[in-house]
């Protein structure tokens, strides 16, 4: 490296100021001009997070939100060279620093995870599905699913409710499936029961519906009279929704 330590240090000091806003003295730098760099850099980060997490931004009091973004940007070294991926780092930082407790927002991790997943599935690289046919045996032929999806589990129904008070009253176990519509590119999501979440997870692994149904008693699913028909109805519906693509060929 050709940089002298002094120049290196000046660049570090300048960028540290942009990240933290904590005052610095740099040779030749006009303080009233320097502040614009902090403003521009911070606004970019804040706008990115607002855009990625519109529900969280709306739900969280402005003072808390501002503190979160400042905390994140000051202490976290942003790694992504693509700014659209930065919200994942924000979400990860929130989880690692236990923001749920710190900001007294028990549903925060779920909400950030849900909003990030929407963005991720919308933008993610195309994934080619396995070869499939449109006809087959629903019970005994492995199904081919739309690979552009995420299956998430939550303690709060952030995919169903927006109001914080309602969310807090509804703590439980929730599953949501997000997938990208192959034609429109829009992200669709659907609430799943624990059984359907389990089913989806197993189908991804290539297990047949019959084999998964056989496993139901071990999950303490005792009312199995209509389980097979309900399961097939769900899968046929999801075929119409372009999540179930067809039958392995």
């Amino acid at each position, binding site marked *: 490296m050709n940089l002298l330590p002094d120049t290196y240090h000046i*660049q570090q000091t*300048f960028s540290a100021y942009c990240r933290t806003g904590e005052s610095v003295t740099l040779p030749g*730098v006009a303080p009233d001009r320097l502040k614009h760099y902090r403003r521009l850099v911070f606004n970019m980060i804040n706008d*990115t997070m607002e855009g990625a997490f519109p529900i969280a931004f709306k739900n969280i009091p402005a003072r808390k939100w501002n503190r979160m973004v400042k905390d994140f940007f000051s202490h976290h*070294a942003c790694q992504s060279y693509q700014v659209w991926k930065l919200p994942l780092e924000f979400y990860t930082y929130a989880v690692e620093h236990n923001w749920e407790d710190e900001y007294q927002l028990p549903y925060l991790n779920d909400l950030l995870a849900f909003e990030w997943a929407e963005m991720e599935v919308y933008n993610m690289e195309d994934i080619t599905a396995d070869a499939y046919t449109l006809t087959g045996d629903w019970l005994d032929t492995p199904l081919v699913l739309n690979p552009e999806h995420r299956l998430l589990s939550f303690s709060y129904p952030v995919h169903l409710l927006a109001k914080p008070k309602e969310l807090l009253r509804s703590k439980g176990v929730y599953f949501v499936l997000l997938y990208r519509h192959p034609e429109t590119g829009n992200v669709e999501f659907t609430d799943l029961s624990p059984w359907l979440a389990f089913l989806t997870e197993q189908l991804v692994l290539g297990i047949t519906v019959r084999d998964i149904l056989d496993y139901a008693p071990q999950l303490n699913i005792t009312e199995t009279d209509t389980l097979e028909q309900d399961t097939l109805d769900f899968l046929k519906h999801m075929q119409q929704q372009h999540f179930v693509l067809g039958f392995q060929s």
Partner: protein
Amino acid sequence: MVGVGFRREFAGEMISGEHIRPDFIEFAPENWMNIGGYWKKVLHQVVEKYPVLCHGLSLSIGSPEELNREFLQYIKTFLNEYKVQLYSEHLSYSKCDNAHMYDLLPIPFRMDAVKHISTRIQQVQDYLQRPLVMEIVSYYTPVAAEMSEVDFIKEVVKQSGCQLLLDVNNIYVNAFNHQYDAKAFIQQLPLNKVAYIHMAGHEQVAPDLIIDTHGEPIIDPVYDLFEWTLQHLQPVPVLLERDFNIPEMAELQGELSRLKSICHKQWKLKDELVA
């Protein structure tokens, strides 16, 4: 050739070509790399229709630390995949202490920085197997300068062998903010190295400060400086940048037409004189 910065906000209009019809488009690879779904389809449609130039955001040529080889690999693949005719970047830094800043920070105008950046430019050019076109950025304060801005730029060009992206609005902004003569500054540049021109609008936020926003129409004094500049250059592609406050396409097309008319007037005249 007069092009426009391609943005998602007006992708449909660009593809239809009804209300705006640039000669080429430019976009940042970072905004389109590793993207699938709807926007990948749109990208394919638009690159089918227009020649493509790319203007990077995250190379951070002025960073104190090592170049990101993985990033360069993605860039190289992307530029080749989309048959990008020209790749430009910024003479600034946006990453330090292993943290991206997502904005253009000013490099200290110093000889050790010149050497550092020139080495890095050469490394990038060698890796990408194409010339790097470096933009003279707008800046709001000098930082620990030990040489003039123009000497700094001239030395970088000389030592690295890079080409220049002359953003005429940036020169106007810098001349205003740092109280120098924009024309005298341009005249001192190695103009034979200018491979690309950018034009944009800005916002005056204080009596003595303009911020380079790309959110307003180009103002007349910048058009005047542009016209004067063209008299000293060989024809190169010219780009209209508009990143915020996106207007009706008719307004953007109006700006494109005005730029085109100035190019035609100045460069045609020059050709006639040469002939």
